[in-house]
């Protein structure tokens, strides 16, 4: 039985209990959210792991980190280090996006090392293996795709991004209306190439029931991939994106009916003034299931700093209803991230998530900030270190601190000290 079906039958699962305790809400709230589809709990039946989390309405925003090899760099050992760095920095899940080297081995390594939820994009492996076996991505067969999905699900993946919401109708719209950056989703590009070359409809769309059967068997959360996401702020909220979102909505409905947990992936590059509308449309068209977004990147012009453009868009989107933020690292648009990039990406995204949590739920996050403010007033460095989103820089400062508190302006008799006494905080 999947979490959704259990919830609908009125049954409270162990995972729901864990999530409720973590979020400090009533477990009935979680059960109801899972039953309605506004909350998902990524947890493959086949995989045991220590950390469970819920994603969706009324919960704190979660942060995902990406790892994985590419054809240019397939060092599994380095990916293991990145995984460790991201978990230490506080991510709630990973996606293993490997496209190079031993993809099976890499996935199994990720699943065994991670204590949090793990997701993937099975089309990458299917596409890369089609090149190895058949000479080209476009020679991939529908069975290749479904077999890869089944294999990955059986390995224990908790959620999967699958590019079902792309069909000829969407692509025709794209061709008719034109775009600055046509398809920036890698899975989307594989599928677009496949469809045009074979002149066949997307098998992941056409045989959606076959996909749902696999998801259901293992209780994998289906993350409807955003094949047509805007890759530039100029393309945000264009016809093609909306078409794709409507197809995603249709598929969400089917998934919910089938008792499969489902969420929807979103952009991408979105200017600040489009964020609220993007969120509203997604929630409306996709039956209020959780929205999993990449960024949003609030501008295109900051390669090297996209963890910051992503934090800007992510925070505002979180306030407007995004539930799950996929991180961006400073290496986005430039290369495969290093361990340090991964850490920077998780921290920036957690700042965005936390800022949004404060605005959307006050509870918990707000108190943490208040405690931090009080620790600052009390000059209590240890407490600040405890409360910081990431304490590495505070720890460095503490190590270097010479303890000299003499005022640089006033010397011994400090005017600000008089003010402190006046306010009773000296």
């Amino acid at each position, binding site marked *: 039985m999947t979490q959704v079906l259990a919830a609908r039958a009125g049954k409270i699962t162990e995972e729901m209990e864990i999530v409720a305790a973590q979020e400090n809400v009533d477990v009935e709230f979680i059960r109801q959210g899972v039953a309605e589809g506004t909350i998902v709990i990524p947890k493959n039946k086949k995989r045991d792991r220590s950390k469970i989390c819920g994603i969706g309405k009324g919960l704190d925003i979660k942060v995902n980190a990406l790892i994985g090899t590419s054809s240019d760099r397939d060092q599994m050992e380095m990916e293991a280090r990145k995984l460790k760095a991201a978990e230490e920095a506080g991510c709630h899940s990973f996606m293993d996006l490997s496209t190079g080297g031993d993809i099976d081995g890499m996935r199994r390594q990720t699943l065994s090392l991670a204590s949090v939820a793990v997701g993937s994009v099975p089309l990458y492996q299917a596409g890369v293996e089609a090149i190895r076996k058949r000479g080209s991505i476009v020679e991939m067969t529908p069975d290749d795709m479904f077999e890869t999905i089944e294999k990955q699900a059986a390995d224990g993946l908790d959620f999967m991004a699958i590019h079902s919401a792309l069909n000829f109708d969407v692509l025709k719209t794209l061709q008719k209306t034109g775009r600055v950056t046509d398809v920036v989703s890698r899975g989307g590009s594989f599928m677009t190439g496949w469809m045009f070359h074979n002149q066949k409809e997307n098998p992941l769309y056409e045989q959606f029931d076959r996909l749902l059967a696999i998801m259901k068997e293992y209780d994998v959360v289906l993350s409807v991939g955003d094949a047509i996401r805007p890759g530039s702020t100029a393309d945000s909220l264009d016809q093609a994106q909306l078409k794709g979102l409507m197809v995603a909505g249709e598929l969400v409905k089917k998934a919910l009916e089938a008792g499969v947990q489902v969420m929807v992936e979103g952009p991408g590059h979105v200017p*600040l003034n489009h964020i609220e509308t993007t969120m509203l449309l997604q929630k409306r068209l996709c039956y209020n299931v959780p929205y999993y977004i990449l960024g949003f990147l609030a501008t295109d012009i900051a*390669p090297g700093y996209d963890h910051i453009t992503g934090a*800007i868009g992510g*925070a505002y989107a979180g306030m407007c209803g995004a539930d799950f933020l996929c991180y961006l690292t400073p290496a986005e648009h430039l290369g495969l991230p290093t361990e340090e990039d991964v850490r920077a990406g998780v921290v920036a995204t957690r700042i965005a998530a936390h800022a949004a949590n404060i605005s959307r739920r006050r509870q918990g996050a707000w108190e*943490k900030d208040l405690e931090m403010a009080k620790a600052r007033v009390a000059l209590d460095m240890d407490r600040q270190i405890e409360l910081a989103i990431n304490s590495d820089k505070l720890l460095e400062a503490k190590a270097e601190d010479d303890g000299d508190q003499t005022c640089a302006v006033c010397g011994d008799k*400090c*005017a600000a000290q008089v003010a402190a006494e*006046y306010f009773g905080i000296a």
Partner: protein
Amino acid sequence: MALLRNSALQGTITPEMEQVAQKEGVSPEFIRQKVAEGKIVILRNTNHHNVVPVAIGDGLQTKVSASVGLYGRNTSISEEIAKIKVAAEAGTDAIMDLSVSGDIDTMRKEALAATSKPLGTLPLYQALAEASQKYGSSLKMKVEDLFEVIERQAADGVDFLALHCGTTMDVIERAKREGRIDPLVSYGGSHLIGWMVHNGKENPLYENFDRVLEIAAKYDVTVSFADGMRPGCLADSLDGAQVQELVILGELVQRTREAGVQVMVKGPGHVPLDQLKATITLQKSLCKGAPYFVFGPLVTDTAAGYDHISAAIGGAISSWAGAEFLCYVTPAEHIGLPDKDQVRQGVVAARIAAHCGDLAKGMPEAVKWDLEMSLARRELDWEKQISLAIDPVTTERVWKERSGDFSSKCSMCGQYCAMEIVSQYLGNDKKHVC
């Protein structure tokens, strides 16, 4: 020479107005009108001879300012001048010299000579530091001393003066009564409050506000109202003390404009995401559209070590909501003094925020910049992507380090570049990859 504001009111377009209009891609008449309305200020002191005037305000690109300055024994003039150069290279629009100790006069003179960017200062620091030297205690500073320093700094050519004119006894008492969590967040403000409490005197910058205006008018310095009650934590945002100070500043804006002096207002601080728009709206309403110069704002208290990111979030949304001038926050905020690299990071993060706001406002230059970058991306034109990047040096370095030693142009996707694959089917590019 006539004050810029008075010229604008009389319908005269000055060379400064022409100059900034050209830079901003707007008509000189647009600038003149907004200067007359007080919605745009042009930073330039008549005595700052090498300055390139910068305009800040409604309808213009959002600007950023970087702060440096002598602070305690571990800082030196040469190091601070080096930071100014780094900040200018990274694209800051203005500099603030917030020196609080050491040879403040020399520092300021060197700063003015070192850059063509407008320079701001906070004269209270020097007045207190000199009183501490002269009388053995900063608390013994005389009102005369303070105005003498303001005049000295203005005469040197400082383009904008940060002055805590609205931090009155009433405001302070309210903060105490209401139990503000962090009443001492403004460094200058805290010292001023201590001086007021100790001496039992009203804020001299408020009481003698006409003297402030006289000096500002003499050199055509823009007055930048500093906020003694800026919120230093989310819990203090939009509290009574902050709002009351803003009400007072609104009154002083009126008086400043009437004196023919240009004025802008400094603001937050720490502000929760959902209070940013309200904060800007309130300032715009109470201060009659005077440009808003905001510090950050930081959207959480808990991001120590990463506050440039927290500030970029708040700055972007504030810029979109109408704040026209962002004071940078570096990763050293709440921890210590920034080094050169942190200055650079602070400027770039603030510029990203400013640009995101401008893009959201649909400003043509901002929209064009994003479009050009994305076209370069589509063409896989790396040289162009680097030259269009907000910080080309960092972009090129990260790209080379992460992808330079590999066969593909970008190691992120390696052979499986989405742009390349799809361009075969949707574009004109015939590169074969599959």
